[in-house]
């Protein structure tokens, strides 16, 4: 068997417990939603529960990876002894996390779709709404949740690499301080940079108008291809930096 497939299977086994736990939590939560809606006599409450469940998936990868990285700490020497490069080792975790995310999000989306169109009849609330609209909005949302969740997962991976390097070389306390520093200041610095004129010149291009102007209360009127390209680039840089740091700087 291909070594990476073997690694993929190992990560599947490592992550299985957590993913199942998350799924059970999801069902319990949705059950609570059904109960609340029934007690209040308002079916639309269940749809609200479902919407929150869908949105919460943006942090799914982060949660999955935190568990996976935490569990791996005990077996770091086995993990690093592998003949695979660190980028492939990380990718095995990311792919498994993404599969678990996709499954969980798929289930939640189907339930939400049922809740929105049958329990709380969206077509009755908004007579302009048609099935193609629902599919369009749903697809847009699902794709973006997948992307954002994966993106945050890569951010977590980078933080983990920073944490590993600093705790080994500077000690546990400094490791946490630097890790938290990057966690809080990293996004802040990025936000500052994304506000600059240079950023706009570089990445705000390829405007695509969305089909519905009043889509989600008019927040998303259009998107920029360049902006996606920027985040893709940033994700790639973070991933490669994390791989490099662990490959070259981490000792066990």
């Amino acid at each position: 068997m291909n070594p990476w497939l073997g690694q993929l299977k190992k990560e599947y086994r490592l992550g299985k417990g957590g993913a199942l736990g998350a799924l059970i939590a999801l069902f319990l939560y949705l059950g609570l939603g059904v109960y609340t809606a029934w007690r209040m006599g308002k079916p639309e409450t269940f749809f609200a529960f479902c919407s929150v469940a869908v949105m919460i998936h943006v942090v799914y990868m982060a949660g999955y990876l935190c568990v996976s990285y935490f569990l791996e700490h005990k077996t770091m020497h086995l993990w690093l002894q592998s003949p695979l490069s660190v980028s492939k080792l990380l990718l095995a975790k990311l792919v498994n996390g993404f599969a678990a995310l996709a499954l969980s999000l798929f289930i939640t989306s189907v339930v939400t779709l049922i809740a929105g169109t049958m329990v709380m009849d969206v077509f009755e609330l908004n007579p302009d709404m048609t099935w193609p609209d629902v599919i369009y909005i749903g697809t847009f949302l699902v794709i973006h949740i997948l992307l954002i969740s994966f993106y945050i997962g890569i951010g977590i991976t980078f933080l983990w690499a920073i944490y590993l390097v600093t705790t080994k070389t500077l000690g546990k306390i400094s490791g946490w301080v630097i890790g938290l520093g990057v966690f809080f200041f990293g996004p802040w610095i990025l936000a500052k940079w994304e506000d600059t004129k240079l950023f706009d010149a570089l990445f705000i291009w390829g405007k695509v108008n969305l089909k519905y102007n009043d889509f989600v209360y008019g927040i998303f009127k259009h998107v920029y291809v360049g902006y996606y390209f920027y985040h893709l680039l940033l994700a790639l840089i973070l991933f490669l930096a994390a791989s490099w740091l662990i490959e070259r700087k981490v000792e066990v």
Partner: protein
Amino acid sequence: MIEFKNVTKKYRNHLALDDFTLSLPKGKIIGVVGENGSGKSTTLKLISGLIRPSKGSVTIEGEDITRKVSSAKVSYLSELDVYYSFYTVGETIGYYASLYRDFNRSKAEEILDYMKLDRSKKVKDLSKGNRGRLKIAVNLSREVPVILMDEPFSGLDPMVRDSIVKGLLSFVDFQTQTIIITTHEIKEIEPILDLVILIKDGKVLQMEEVEEIRIHQNLSIVEWMKKEYE
């Protein structure tokens, strides 16, 4: 075949190896001995590529050791008593067989039989002794030039130690493989060693042929070690 040239290894608050120079020959069973904290484990970890020298160089067959170089040439048994606990014995072997192209599956099966390990048992349910045996099975099944064993006997009862020594003699290819063992249980491996390296405070104190120590000094390794340490 393995060369340490003026290697210094500093950790945050201590010096593990200090200007350490050593040349290890091919096809021998080599024992690395010394008191706790003398640098035995650090020496093996440097060969395994899990750590890197602060100064100096460590090479294997002329190549600088990195994680990648080492993973193709070295099978490393860690002193840590940890494996993926969600796997069974059989799945653990399967995982390593998929990971390493040099993994000899049929040899692994032979060792499992020899060690009387139940393939369907979960790693987390194994006794300490059987976890030790499983580690050896994984370690010896790889057809690589160098086999490293960091404290393979520690915490194991005499029966297990015996099966490990016998397993080593039965399953290692002495024509092509070099074995490097660190241990405190010197008596256990005394009759199977070719060479012994004595380390003190991060430096190589002595390297000797074991039979020469017996022939010329009429000393056992433990006696020799005590004498050299003083």
